[in-house]
């Protein structure tokens, strides 16, 4: 190719899936152009869905850890430590997932070639870079503090943890912006709600993960209760936002991809039922003031699962909406 730096491709090479010979009878008889897509779908798949989940969870974990460190007491210290370790773990896995998803992974470093504030992905790249660095520092300080019981390291961790938490807040939400700042109808139609939803979902996931990671035994029970309460609040907010998102989609007649299998199953069972079930358990635990035995960890697992499924559902439903010309035109009509 003569685009700069490119090379010429040989003849007769198949590069893009052709739409093939769809029999006329199966073509939609609408005012679109033979039902062919007006937009190109994103090429993202499961790797990115997993990243959205893990990156978001890590970001939210960092936020929770820092708040617990600043506002909590000694009893919350296991939570703080686990939060910081979880954040670090997430920030280590994330770039691997992202690089693996690149079509030219050897050029991963170009993600840090330039700063573009118009690009949610550029912002995300620098955020992930900062978050990773800061999470590393915070977790290192935390580890030194834990190993040597030296208060100075705890102070260092607390100081580094503040910018890390800010980066974490972005980590938990920017992926919603990443999707919304495209032309894909399903994503672009909810530019504010999607980051909110992702942030809350990340929070629920981080809370669930931390709850699972906390040590068993009585000493951790008060912390666990606080996490239950936070999960309840986060879950309630999430359900409310999810309802708004869905009604926005339905109002603009963009929800069709949600009603097609297998997305439909993921949305109904994974997202709606999963969120609701974990919400009910959390509510019962908070109201009852006690643990419901194995239901507690189950609620955490469900929160994690529904958080992941939410990302996958939004991702795949969005891709499907992009190739629906009716949806694209409906979105782009005055």
């Amino acid at each position, binding site marked *: *190719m*003569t685009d*700069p*730096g*490119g*090379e*010429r*491709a040989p003849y007769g090479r198949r*590069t893009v899936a*052709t*739409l*093939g*010979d769809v*029999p006329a009878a199966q073509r939609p008889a609408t005012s679109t*152009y033979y039902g*062919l897509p*007006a*937009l*190109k*779908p*994103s090429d993202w798949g499961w790797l990115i869905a997993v990243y959205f989940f893990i990156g978001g969870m890590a970001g*939210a974990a960092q*936020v929770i850890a820092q*708040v617990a460190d*600043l*506002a909590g007491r000694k009893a919350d210290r296991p939570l703080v430590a686990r939060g910081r370790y979880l954040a670090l773990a997430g920030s280590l896995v994330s770039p691997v997932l992202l690089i693996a*998803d690149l079509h*030219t992974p050897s*050029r991963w470093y*170009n993600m840090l*070639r*330039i700063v573009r*504030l*118009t*690009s*949610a*992905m550029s*912002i995300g*790249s620098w955020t992930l870079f900062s978050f990773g660095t800061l999470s590393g520092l915070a977790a290192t300080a935390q580890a030194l503090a834990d190993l040597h019981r030296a208060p100075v390291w705890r102070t260092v961790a607390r100081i580094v943890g503040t910018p890390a938490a800010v980066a974490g*807040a*972005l980590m*938990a*939400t*920017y992926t919603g*912006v990443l999707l*919304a*700042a*495209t*032309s894909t109808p399903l994503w672009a139609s909810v530019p504010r709600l999607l*980051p909110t939803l992702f*942030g*809350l979902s990340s*929070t629920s996931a981080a809370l669930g993960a931390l709850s699972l990671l906390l040590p068993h035994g009585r000493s951790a029970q008060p912390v666990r*209760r606080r996490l239950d309460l*936070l999960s309840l609040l986060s879950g309630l907010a999430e359900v409310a936002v999810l309802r708004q998102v869905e009604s926005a989609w339905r109002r603009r007649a963009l929800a069709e991809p949600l009603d097609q299998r297998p997305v439909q199953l993921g949305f109904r069972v994974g997202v709606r039922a999963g969120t609701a079930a974990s919400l009910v358990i959390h509510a019962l635990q908070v109201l009852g003031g006690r643990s419901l035995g194995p239901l507690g960890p189950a609620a955490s697992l469900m929160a994690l699962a529904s958080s992941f499924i939410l990302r996958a559902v939004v991702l795949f439903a*969005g891709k499907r909406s992009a190739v629906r*010309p009716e949806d694209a*035109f409906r979105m*782009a*009509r005055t």
Partner: protein
Amino acid sequence: MSTPVWPEFVPERGRALGSDALSGPIIDEAELTAGVRVEAGQTYGFLTDTTLCIGCKACEVACKEWNALPAEEPFVMTGNSYDNTSQLSATTWRHVAFVEKLVQAGAHERASATHGSAFQSGWLMMSDVCKHCTHAGCLEACPTGALFRTEFDTVVVQADICNGCGYCVPACPFGVVALDSNDGKAHKCTLCYDRLKGGFEPACAKACPTNSIQFGPLPDLHARANERVASLRQRHGVADAYLYGVQGADGGQGTTGGIGDLQAFFVLTDQPEVYNLPSAPSLPSRRVRPGLLAGLATMAGVAIAAAVVFAAGSERP
């Protein structure tokens, strides 16, 4: 009469002419083929006038031959009129759409079969291409800077930078840019960036037999297009003709939502959607700031709630 659609043929223009023996490429050849001397610092674009399009697809072939783009297998007809390439892709940077509309909706007779319009009618043909938007969604989305705006104000993917993240693909409001799974890069029309650097007209516009594709500085093209639409409406009775991709013209279809003028714009005679174009696309980057703020606000809320819970909880024994 004044519509300068056809560049006057001035053999004296362009340099290094003379006998049949050429010592090398013609210097500033675009002067000869488009009446334009290509200079850095100017804004260039395409005016694609569908009323002159004969659907010959010379643009598709010239583009592929110049840019060494492969054809797409399998070699199977789509049945969508004479359109067998279907869409713009990583390896198809010009695409001619074909829309048969001899029979108006609900009419039994082929309404336009007998009396056509002065120019294209009954069978719409339109050569689609990257719009080279004034505010380009793909460029703004590109995290590597592979997509950039050249000295000709065109939007180009630099294949020596692109790492195939694919974010430009869903970002484009027109479904233009695409990934090539063979080389792992995003590709689209470069408005023949290399040719412009050498003073040559882009391959598609140079090849176009009927001047349906015109290349030039954007202000000149705008002037020409406005005259053309006026002439079509007043002189030739093509009342439906309008400009797609020019701000201020007919409600500025295609230029909405912060995208601004499309440097590759069109004279159309039917609704944009008929040609697979959105009537009111929007610039994706406009959603970045509100999205980030909403997200940060959400996390601030989470932090406050957590602070309250942790602070309150800590007082208990």
